[in-house]
Structure formats: structure tokens, C-alpha cells
């Protein structure tokens, strides 16, 4: 526990000291809301205002970005630089190290989600008509699932260049296709098919349904199964492929 606390503290310190990352983490959700919110001002999607629709989609986007680009690529870089190897020469458990990194990624996701929600509500009068507590729980589960996938991606990538390219290749289409910015129903069948193969689609569906449409979380069985399946699969890959150097 002592090691976990120190490691989380260190991750936070390192994050705060890296101005470019801090800037990106804040600017990304702000720009997304301003740009798409302004473009679709007053629009209605699936029976709710576009700005409300964008809350769930935008949270999906930041989760994907934080998990793959911030966590996955950064971990790969630390491995390549040799920082991980020095940690491997101590009794720190792999699970503690990765747990601290997931905690940090989750914190970043919460900050970004907070910005997303606040701006949409303040500027474009978005409304959260569903269950906020469940929204919070789903956000937490989503952060955990995707952070684990980000770590698994690092494990199967040979080096930082590969990890970075793979992160972009996975994260980029997910950020646009998974019902994040546009409703799935409005997309051509080919893209819809592609979206149904991407896990972020299910998280955004679940989040939107529960937080904005006011549905019961238990009416989304398929979404829960996909997300937990991804967590299990990614968790196993992450453990099996983890290496210090």
C-alpha cells in the first residue's frame, strides 16, 4: 500500500511537471466541445439535444485518448528508456506499478470528463436526465477497461514507434466512429459494421443510455458483456506480455 501510494504520487507529480501533456489533456475536451457543440447548436439527436448527446460521446473520446495515447505510449517509452528495468530490480509488484498507472489514467479521464460535462451544460445547455451515480460507475469501469487495453497494447508492441502507431490506428477511428460525435444510425452500413467491432461503441452506448436517456443499466446486457470480456482479455494479454525491458 505504501508503494502504491508513492507510485501514484510520483505519476501525478510527473504528469503535472509535463506541461505539454497537461495542456493537451485540458485543451482536447475544450476544443471538442466548442467545435462540435457550436456546429450542431440547437440540434436534436435521438430525442435529446446534441450537446447532451455529445457528453457521452466526448467522454468516450477522452477515455480512448487517455488510455491508448497517454498511458499505453508513455509506458512503452519508459520501457524503452530503461526506467522500467530499474523498477524491475526492486520488489515492487508489477500489479502495483500498473495499478498506479491505471489510477493516474483514471484521474485524467475524470478531469477531462468533468470539463466535457461542465462546458456542455454551461455553454450549450446540455442536460443530464439519467442516473449520475451510475454514470460515474460506468465511467470508472470504462476507464479501467480501456486503460488495461492500453497496457496490453504496449505489451504486444515491440517498441514505442509500433505502440504509438498502433495506439493511433485503434484510437483514432474509435474516437469518431463509435457513436461519439454522430449517431450510429446516421452512418452508412459499412461504418456501422466497423463501429460494432470497436469496444468503445458499447461503452458510449451504455453511458449515454444510463446517463442521458435514463435507462436502467441492467437493460444493457450486451454492452456489459463486451466491456467485461475486453477487460478480461486485455488483462490476460497485459500480464502475459508485460516485460521490464
Amino acid at each position, binding site marked *: 500500500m505504501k508503494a502504491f*501510494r*508513492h507510485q501514484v504520487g510520483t505519476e501525478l507529480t510527473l504528469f503535472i511537471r509535463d506541461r505539454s501533456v497537461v495542456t493537451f489533456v485540458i485543451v482536447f475536451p475544450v476544443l471538442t466541445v466548442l467545435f462540435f457543440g457550436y456546429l450542431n447548436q440547437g440540434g436534436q439527436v435521438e430525442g435529446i439535444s446534441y450537446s447532451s448527446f455529445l457528453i457521452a460521446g466526448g467522454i468516450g473520446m477522452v477515455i480512448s485518448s487517455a488510455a491508448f495515447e497517454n498511458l499505453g505510449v508513455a509506458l512503452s517509452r519508459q520501457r524503452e528508456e*530503461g526506467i522500467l*528495468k530499474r523498477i524491475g530490480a*526492486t520488489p515492487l509488484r508489477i500489479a502495483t506499478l500498473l495499478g498506479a498507472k491505471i489510477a493516474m489514467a483514471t484521474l485524467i479521464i475524470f478531469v477531462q470528463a468533468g470539463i466535457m460535462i461542465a462546458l456542455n451544460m454551461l455553454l450549450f445547455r446540455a442536460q443530464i436526465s439519467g442516473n449520475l451515480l451510475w454514470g460515474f460507475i460506468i465511467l470508472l469501469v470504462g476507464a479501467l477497461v480501456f486503460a488495461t487495453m492500453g497496457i496490453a497494447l504496449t505489451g504486444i508492441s515491440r517498441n514505442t514507434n509500433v505502440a504509438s502507431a498502433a495506439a493511433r490506428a485503434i484510437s483514432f477511428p474509435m474516437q469518431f466512429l463509435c457513436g461519439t460525435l454522430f449517431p450510429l444510425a446516421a452512418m452508412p452500413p459499412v461504418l456501422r459494421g466497423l463501429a460494432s467491432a470497436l469496444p468503445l461503441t458499447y461503452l458510449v452506448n451504455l453511458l449515454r443510455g444510463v446517463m442521458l436517456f435514463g435507462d436502467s443499466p441492467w437493460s444493457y446486457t450486451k454492452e456489459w458483456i463486451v466491456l467485461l470480456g475486453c477487460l478480461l482479455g486485455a488483462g490476460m494479454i497485459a500480464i502475459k506480455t508485460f516485460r521490464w525491458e
Partner: protein
Amino acid sequence: MTVIHVQDLQKHYGEVKAVDGISFQVHQGEVFGFLGPNGAGKTTTIEILEGFHRQDRGEVSVLGLDPQADRYELQERIGIMLQETELYQDLRVGELLRLFASYYRGAVDPKTLLEMIGLEAKERAFIRELSGGQRQRVVFILTLINDPDLLFLDEPTAGLDPQSRRAIWNWIDRGRQEGKTVFLTTHYIEEAERLCDRVAIIDHGHIIALDTPKSLMASANVENRIEFTTEGSLNTDKLQSMPLITNVVEHGRGAYTLFAQEAEPALKSLIALSEENGFRIRGLHVEGASLEDVFIQLTGRRIRA
């Protein structure tokens, strides 16, 4: 007591036999060195002992533990200095030490360690602001943060300035005095001779000799060189006729090199001769056999070719 036990260790990388069937033991309280050129198998061996890699064949036991199966328990009790260490550049020195201290069940106060290496004033400096020598000192004290029984030092002074190198040698000496066992690798002859109680000379994945530096040098059967100058010329026949002297070379006027199997009796007879004949010896310099000579004799090559 045996601290490290290695029996018929083998490790291959594809077709390359990095370590090809080596056996040795390290006893409690000794400084044991692996001396050899780059690529001889030193790092592969030390990293198997540290638990980073699994051997292909052979038995390995460190502090009675299996480095693979008991990895975390082993890490609690050993200190590791990797050949190259990268640290979090954006942490302060004190933060880094406290972070590493948190990884262990028990840890030394980071301040004590900083005082030992004379960097207590740098506690709030960022790692990226340290000079190369200061950085390597910090890397060194990280190995001591859990007060380990056993230290693994992989090329601890490679690329360092002479002052930092001597400082690290002194701290290794201090560790030995405190009863710690040290396993180190090096390709510096002087380091092995100065620090090690026993040295294994390793080449192409084999241990080709293992003994105390003194015995290794004695067994190499290399002659000592005694160099001196005098004010006037001497009769080289007289020098040559001294007991135990095998050869005499005169370099210009009054400068001589004597070759002898053993330095001490040859020096005694040289001094006796000087008193008898009334000449004064100036600039006396005795150079014994070195581990480099041993390596050359065994392999026909220099360690750093």
C-alpha cells in the same frame, strides 16, 4: 557460507551461446568479480542471478533462493546496479530516493545515503540537473536503500571520471567492511585488482580462470619490471649477475629496467648492490604482473581490444 551458487549455467540467444556452462560459488562477505571483455557473458550471467532472465540450463541459487520463483523475496534482500540506468528525469533527487525506499519492507533514511555521497545539498535538485558523476552516485546509493546483504554491480564505474570511480571504490570497500557480499562485473583491470577478493576471468561464455588476483598473477608466470635511474652509468654485467634477475635493459644513460620473477628479493639485492658500489637509486618504479597479463596469456588478446 555460500551466498551465490551457480552450476553449469547456460544461456543461448538464438545461435549465440552467451553463457556456455559456467560454475562458481560466491561466499559471504567477499567481493567477487567477473572480469572480461564486452560480450563475454558477464551481463547475461549477472542478470540471470538478479532474476531478469531464465537460464536455458543449469542451477542457480542466490541467498538460498531461486531468482525466478522467489523473485520478489530476493529483490528485498539484494541491491542492483544495472549496466545502464535511466531515472525519472523530472523527479527531484529526494523524491526519487523516497519513492524507491517505499518499494521495500525496510529502508535506510535517504538523507544518510545522500550524506555518504556528499550530495545532501542536491536533495531538491532535479535528476536532469545532475552531472554524469553525480547521477552515477545517485544510481549507486539506490542499490543501498534497502540495506541489502548482497550487491550486484554491473560495470559500476564504466565511463566515469577517475574521481567518481575512486569514490565508488571506497563505498564498495565500506560495504565489504560492513559484511556485505558484492558480485561485480568489470572490464577494468585496475578495478578487479583493487576491489576483488576473487576474480573469475570470463571469455566467450566460459570461465577461463578463477582465483584471488594475487594467485592469478603468480600463476601467469609474468616477470616483474623494476625501473630506476642513477646519476652515472652502471656496469650492466654487475646488475645482470645479481640473483633472480633474468634480464637487464639500459635505456640511455643511467636508466635501467630489471626483469625479475619476484620483485622483493630482487629489490633487496639491488639496494645491497647500491650500498656496496656507492650509487644512488632515483625514480624507483616497480611494476608487477597485472590481470591483463593473465588474460593475454590465457587468450592471446587484450581485454579491451
